[in-house]
């Protein structure tokens, strides 16, 4: 534990030194760093994507626009910009499951999902998802029927992918807001499914 602690302190010292030198040279405004951090900590995250999915579940015309031109459809809900400049939405359906990876780095649709989780950027996920998707999905507790076709999308260019999970059964009467609460981050990456009603 102590070793881990001093390791962390080294990194902290290194980051502090970098920020100090950059500030002294006038290349950065530290206040801008605070705004950037606050943005990704409190404003931009997977609840944005959940609202997109819920809208697609209740509004067939929106779903159609989302599948045709996801960048424009997502912008209708106010989400756009950095790392979401060119969006494509891919819909799960009975017998068809989509899952997204970036084998070369950590490409991820920031405006709708926020910053990627650690596992998404990790070597195990990046190396294995393209080769053994069923094995990786099992580690997320997801088992699909053997007959389900799986498409793995490797985000190698500047197109960013959003998975539209299947709408859970028994949700006919739910409001859009209640539906959005069923949409998990992982279900929009493809490593999870939308929650069933009552499931936490």
């Amino acid at each position, binding site marked *: 534990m102590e070793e881990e602690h001093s390791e962390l302190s080294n990194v902290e010292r290194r980051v502090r030194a970098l920020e100090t030198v950059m500030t002294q040279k006038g290349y950065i405004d530290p206040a801008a760093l605070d705004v950037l951090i606050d*943005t990704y900590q409190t404003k931009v995250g997977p609840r944005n994507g959940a609202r997109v999915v819920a809208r697609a579940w209740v509004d067939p015309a929106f779903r159609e626009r989302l599948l045709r031109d996801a960048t424009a459809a997502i912008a209708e809900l106010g989400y756009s910009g950095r790392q979401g400049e060119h969006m494509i939405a891919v819909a799960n359906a009975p017998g068809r499951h989509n899952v997204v990876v970036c084998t*070369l780095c950590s490409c991820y649709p920031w405006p709708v999902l926020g910053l990627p989780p650690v596992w998404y950027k990790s070597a195990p996920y990046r190396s294995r998802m393209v080769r053994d998707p069923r094995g990786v999905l099992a580690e997320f507790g997801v088992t699909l029927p053997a007959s389900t076709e799986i498409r793995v999308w490797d985000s190698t260019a500047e197109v960013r992918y959003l998975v539209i999970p299947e709408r859970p059964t028994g949700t006919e009467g739910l409001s859009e807001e209640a539906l959005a609460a069923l949409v998990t981050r992982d279900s929009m990456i493809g490593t999870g499914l939308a929650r069933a009603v009552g499931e936490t």
Partner: protein
Amino acid sequence: MPYVSHADIGGRRGFGAVVPEPEGAVFHATWEARVLALTIALGATGRWNLDMSRSARETLPDYLDLTYYEIWLHGLEKLLIEKGLVTSDELSAGCARLAPVPVDRVLKADQVAALLAKGAPTERASVTPARFKPGQRVRTRRTPAEHHTRLPGYVRGKRGVVERVLGTHVFADSHAQGAGEDPQWLYTVVFDAAELWGSEAKPGHSVSFDAWEPYLEAA
């Protein structure tokens, strides 16, 4: 010196199990948040582009031993030194010793929202017709690149099918080398898993990636 990317790990074995984590925590330490913010703010100086950042990170010799924000930190320091914004002595000392060099912009707090909203679209006007169309069979280039590329090793020299034409986009390979935007047609190309993984592939599994036209030839 030959160009080596340590990030091209699709399909490689031996990295162990994936460790899922619940939705919620964005950063796991304060310094990670500072690194993210420093990376975006210093990117706004205009002294390099996103593809150069990726190239700086993937060529770190200890890439696979670092956590992801350490990769970003080390990559950022490397770019700053390479582009002449700072010296390694200054970074070790934690103190500026030389005068700053001119930069295109210093990002201010009140400009952050506009910067993020604008993003950096890579689509450009098409001036040539697309060489391939949906449904066409293609093969990916066989030879490894001697520079940054977005053609992963596991899909090199493989036969697939063009599924979607994505327009003309800034070509990462050229952009990373400082050779300009060199826009090229971009396609989604899909492979049957058996083409990539042979007999271990399970039926009903396909993999797609986004390929710039120079990565492809007709098959």
